[in-house]
């Protein structure tokens, strides 16, 4: 029993370290300040509604706030 507990604790610690390392390596950089993204010319239909498509190659979710067309 003692041996099992020792092995189980070591296994859980190693797994947590591996998971933590993955998250540390892939966690997104938090941007501060206004971020401007050049999206190209304004599409004609943008006046009322448009769809912005992002290719998101990881788990990260993208939050879009305050979109302006100039």
């Amino acid at each position: 029993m003692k041996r099992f507990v020792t092995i189980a604790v070591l296994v859980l610690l190693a797994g947590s370290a591996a998971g933590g390392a993955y998250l540390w390596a892939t966690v997104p950089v938090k941007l501060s300040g206004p971020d401007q993204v050049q999206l190209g010319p304004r599409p004609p239909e943008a006046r009322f509604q448009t769809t912005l498509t992002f290719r998101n190659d990881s788990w990260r979710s993208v939050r879009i706030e305050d979109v302006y067309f100039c």
Partner: protein
Amino acid sequence: MFSKGTAWLIDSARTSVGLLLALAAVFKLPQLLTGAISPSWWVLVGVELGLGTWLVLGVAVVCASALAAMLFTAFSLINAFFLWHQVPRCACLGLLPASPAWMLPIDLAALAFSLLALAAQLPRRSTLLLGRKT
């Protein structure tokens, strides 16, 4: 330590965990081959496929169960983080739609089964090696 019926249940659980890992790897293959996910995922697919097959075969179960418990601890931590950050989807099952809210309980169950398989194998191995229970 366990009755014959319980031992059979634990062996079935270990096989199920192995099949889950192998299937998760197989469902990631089309996405890898079409470039939908990063090539670095080949490492994970290799680990899942290898460990899944190992668990199903039932060879050196102590090592396989310990590695599976380690892997599912990492998966549980990652999915808990995703859930906390309200990430709606994860690539856990490749082509199959999966969310961290569903995958976290599955990962925790697989972790429990792996630890149980490890606990079930340790006394037997000691008896075989030393001729007595430790």
